[in-house]
């Protein structure tokens, strides 16, 4: 056994969150925080990918921490649907702060989908951040908006017919419908909504010298990311020093719905983190 696992409740925003700290038998001093996508799933995620990743990282000396967002799994609170305007920033920050209380203050983030967006928004406030891998991170639209933009007219007609006034009572629903319609209209007239949050966040991390890996598969948010690369993001990433880079893979990575994509994730994460560790001066070297 190369690791043991410690179960924990820790304080979140007005609630208690639950998590699992995987402790390697021989530590390299780094802890990897694993914020995952939205959805009311167990902290092991589909096919135990988070569990398997945590244990693979322990084999290489990394601590890791997987946790449940508010209202999910063993955490307290009410589940809330993920939207880009309301990321789970507080939960990511709470997890990173709890790790510091455990003496783990050198932190890497490996985040997927909505967890990547939440981590990106939390990044300026994460203390001791030494690297980030963002997998299939939303760029300017969430899943529903990306899908709605590509739906045919028949789909829209069918859904408008089903629409009831009661569904428009909540401000959150109205805002969601407004975004869907705007996205579709934008796709029709080929106008891209201006949303600089993603590019600005990446730019700040690069300026701060935080190594980044931006990984996209053949599906999900890749088209939005490629479009952004063609604008301001491309030159910013080009100017960044290695090991910061984007990585396009041929596998479908959305939800890691194939065994091949899961294996690829574990290989990519472990090899990139090792690359960062090799390039990072050890604390004693920094001191000298």
């Amino acid at each position, binding site marked *: 056994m190369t690791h*043991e*696992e*410690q*179960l*924990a*409740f820790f304080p979140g925003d007005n609630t*208690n969150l*639950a998590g*699992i700290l995987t402790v390697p038998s021989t530590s390299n001093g780094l802890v990897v925080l694993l914020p995952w996508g*939205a*959805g*009311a*799933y*167990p*902290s*092991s*995620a*589909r*096919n*135990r*990918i988070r*569990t398997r990743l945590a244990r693979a990282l322990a084999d290489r000396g990394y601590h890791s921490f997987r946790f449940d967002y508010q209202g*999910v*799994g*063993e955490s*307290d609170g009410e*589940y809330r*649907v*993920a939207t880009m305007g309301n990321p789970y920033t507080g939960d990511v920050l709470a997890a990173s702060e709890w790790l510091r209380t455990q003496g783990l203050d050198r932190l890497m983030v490996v985040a997927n989908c909505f967890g990547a967006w939440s981590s990106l928004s939390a990044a300026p406030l994460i203390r001791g951040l030494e690297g980030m891998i963002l997998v299939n991170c939303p760029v300017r639209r969430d*899943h529903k908006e990306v899908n709605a933009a590509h739906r045919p007219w028949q789909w829209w007609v069918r859904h408008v017919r089903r629409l009831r006034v009661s569904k428009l009572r909540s401000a959150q629903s109205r805002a969601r419908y407004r975004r869907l319609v705007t996205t579709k209209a934008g796709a029709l007239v080929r106008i891209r909504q201006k949303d600089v949050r993603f590019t600005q966040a990446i730019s700040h991390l690069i300026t701060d010298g935080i190594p980044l890996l931006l990984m996209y598969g053949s599906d999900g948010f890749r088209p939005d990311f490629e479009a952004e690369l063609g604008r301001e993001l491309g030159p910013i990433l080009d100017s960044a020093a290695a090991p910061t880079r984007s990585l396009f893979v041929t596998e*479908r990575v959305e*939800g*890691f*719905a*194939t*065994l*091949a*994509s*899961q294996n690829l994730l574990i290989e990519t994460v472990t090899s990139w983190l090792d690359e960062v560790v090799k390039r990072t001066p050890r604390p004693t070297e920094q001191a000298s």
Partner: protein
Amino acid sequence: MSVAARIDGATGVEERLEHLVGPRGLLYSWSAWPQGANSLVVICSSVLGDFVSNYHRERQLGRDLAAHGHGVIRFHYTGEGNSQGDRRDMTFESMCADAEAVLTISASMGYSKLGVVGTRVGALVAAAVVANSPQVPLALWEPVTDPARFIQEAGRVRKMSRLTQEQSIAAPSWREELAKHQVLDILGYDLYPAFVESLGNVDLLTLLGTSTRKLLVARFGSAADSLASLAANLRDRGFQVTTGSFGSQEAWWLDKETVADSANLITATTKWLTDVLESEKRP
């Protein structure tokens, strides 16, 4: 072994995350311990896609049962979720052995009344582990009555997913592929021969046996299916069966970002277990 505990500020219920000792490694568990409870409910989850799809409902059920004064234990099988072990080694027998270990631990805690909930394949496990305890009420959610159909359903989902990805569906059958590669990829869930073979001779009716007991059979959606005939069959055998249809049919292997409204299912299950456990005489 690790334990974490917290007290819910609103209800005063103690919740624990705990590693329980199973026959083949540590089992991850969540439990709730209301003060003064004399009954305990053990929830036997399903596995693979079902495990993930149903997790939130089981979480809600656990919390609701605790709020109604029952002790509750949910756990992950060896090779599933956050427990130790490898999926390759997971079989129906290993799942039953894990559930038995949890029941043994439960029995040692001094609760006078026990109830068991089983969901999907977990219903088979639940039926197997209480076979010799007819006084234990069983609540079964969408039980897999015929495991062969569970595996066939997985094969169909795989075929559909190939179709949506514009891949050929004229690929080898799942049986051929499983025999050839010794693993089957069902939308990112790995299905191994040991698990498939272990379900070969299992069926719910046989596991439930002839010792009559109180049963709740809940199905998702109102479509007529084998659960209606299961309930009728059990009533003929003298079981006291309560049935109910709740919500809409579940697409078990598919991930969803939204949470289905399961309030009626949770409420009905808690009420049924509460009524049955309270009506029992203390031993």
